[in-house]
């Protein structure tokens, strides 16, 4: 059974058709990429899957369940986690608190009668994730004071703390140096399996290096889908990208 399935998913903004009847399937443990020129509808498609935007028509099926009508936070509880193209963290909380608060969402929201430090298991989990995203020695720094690349990692860490089964990464290497991007790509590779990862990327090299399968969006429609080699050989893709 696929982890994620989009059925004839569409998004219209007035007369503009941003995403047009896209069918999409992701199997468990896969590392998938969505690429395409600017304005191809990648982020819009992502937003519909994560619940940030309501779909105009079509369905989003997650683990066999129709989640089209569910809001972002409900989808998060089902096991969908996402990051944003523009870094989206809690700037005036510390690194550790950023991750801890995300982990807490699996336990409690309205608990008002205990103290935060009492919840040792959340702190342990946060420490473990902070270690994993290599920010352990900055765990007490305010997130807003971190360097750009570190903030991108922190955002992935926040998402990991919610125990997602499907990780949606929106341009995780945006604004990074080539060296940082390469490292990040390796890091993402280590996340896939047991997790399922879908990433939207601009950087073709990154995508080609790590993806199991690639989907090319163009003008809101799927132009091509296949393995790295198939995409490389695809004439349609070459035409779109060369013209871009």
């Amino acid at each position, binding site marked *: 059974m696929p982890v994620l399935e989009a059925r004839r998913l569409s998004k219209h903004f007035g007369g503009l058709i941003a995403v047009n009847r896209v069918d999409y399937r992701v199997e468990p443990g896969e590392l998938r990429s969505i690429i395409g020129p600017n304005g191809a509808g990648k982020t819009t498609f992502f937003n519909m899957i994560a619940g940030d935007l309501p779909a105009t028509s079509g369905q989003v099926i997650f683990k066999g369940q129709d989640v089209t009508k569910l809001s972002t936070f409900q989808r998060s509880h089902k096991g969908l986690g996402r990051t944003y193209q523009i870094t989206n963290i809690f700037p005036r909380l510390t690194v550790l608190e950023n991750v801890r*608060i995300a982990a807490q969402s699996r336990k409690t*929201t309205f*608990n008002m009668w205990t103290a935060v430090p009492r919840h040792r298991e959340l702190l342990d989990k946060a420490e473990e994730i902070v270690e994993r995203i290599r920010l352990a020695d900055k765990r007490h720094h305010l997130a807003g004071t971190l360097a750009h690349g570190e903030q991108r990692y922190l955002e992935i860490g926040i998402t990991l703390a919610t125990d997602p089964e499907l990780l949606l990464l929106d341009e995780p290497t945006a604004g990074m140096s080539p060296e940082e991007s390469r490292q990040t790509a390796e890091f993402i590779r280590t996340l896939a399996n047991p997790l399922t990862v879908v990433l939207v990327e601009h950087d073709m090299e990154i995508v080609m290096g790590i993806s199991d399968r690639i989907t090319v969006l163009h003008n809101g429609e799927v132009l091509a889908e296949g393995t790295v080699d198939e995409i490389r050989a695809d004439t349609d893709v070459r035409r779109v990208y060369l013209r871009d």
Partner: protein
Amino acid sequence: MGPDRPHDRFPVREFRAWFFDAFDRYGIIILAGFLAVYPALFAGLNQSIRLAEDADWEGLAEALATLRGFVPSTPLMIQILIYAYFGIAFNILLGNAGMISLGHSAFFGVGGYTVGLMHSWFKPDTGVPRWMTDTFVRLPLEISLISALVVSALVALAIGKLASAKRGVYFAMLTLALSQVFYYAAQTFDTITGGTDGRGGLANMRLGSLDLRVGIMDATVTYYFIFIVAGIATALIWQILRSPFGQVLRAVRENETRARNCGYDTNRVRLCAFILSGTFSGLAGALAIIYGESVPIENIHFVTSGQVVIITLFGGAGTFLGPAVGSFIYWYLRQLMSTEFVKYLAIFQYWEMWVGGIFILIVLFVPAGILGAIHNWTMEFRLRRALELGGRRDEAGRGVTVPQDVPAATRRQDTDARS
């Protein structure tokens, strides 16, 4: 100074480090202790003046009387206490959830009116069932305070349902508009609320379970009653803010989109915060009418909402006790200007103008508020000290990594989640 002769001078920095730690750790206890003995201090001052007069030490008596003009009286301290607590309740929203409500007068007023109406209705021959009046005669203030909590919670639910789904300035405007609905209702139904004259005639309020009389005749008893009730409520708020829920509030303030993505139902969190803040504010309003023994309509007017915003920003919305500091500054300055300064310069009778001016200065130059500025200063000091004690700046120069053998208090470095 200089590292070569370290023991020549008084160790200023050590002392400051010690002082800041003590301030952090024991500040609240010292404050509570001071408030607990305040009426005794003030009574002691009055007593000394009388003794000096009796002994014909005119100079001393006069000096002490002048001093008394600059010391807040017990009734003024009652006002300061109430608004300190009101500000802390209000700050659940402003400082923690990041919601700017301009409608807290609704809760403050409704809390007061509830107590006022209970005391004029629950009497024999007003058509209220006998068992109710009987219970009320035994426990009047207890029952009316609990009723005030319930009623203001319901009002907060109603306003919150409509307003908390909106964000930023729309939220502020909606709370303002909805609170004014209550003001006009209070004005229109003047047979119940007393209209612009206020709901008066609340003499003989008593705490049934302790058989204590509170009100204008017993300033000290009223002071202690309010001190204890507001103190307990403040402790509750403190607990809520340090709980996991309090952390969720700050997450919503920091980045609502991210909080929702983490799986938090932020609309419900906002509504819940609003109801909590409104309910605690309703209790503040209920306490506020006890000493004056009447409910002035100003309590439900927009001006009260403005006051609590000013008080909170004076002291610092980013700190827990900021509103308490703000309340003291606001009421003390107001009193000082209109009774003491005005003796020397008539223009001080327009105290609103001066308080407004100070407010502008604080917003411009001390945006963190008085306590917030002290707090930031403490943090900066600790950061510098951490560097001196062998911490090193990271490559980006934005934070400090401190070795583990540095004393724990200093190791807290640049981490401030609140301000």
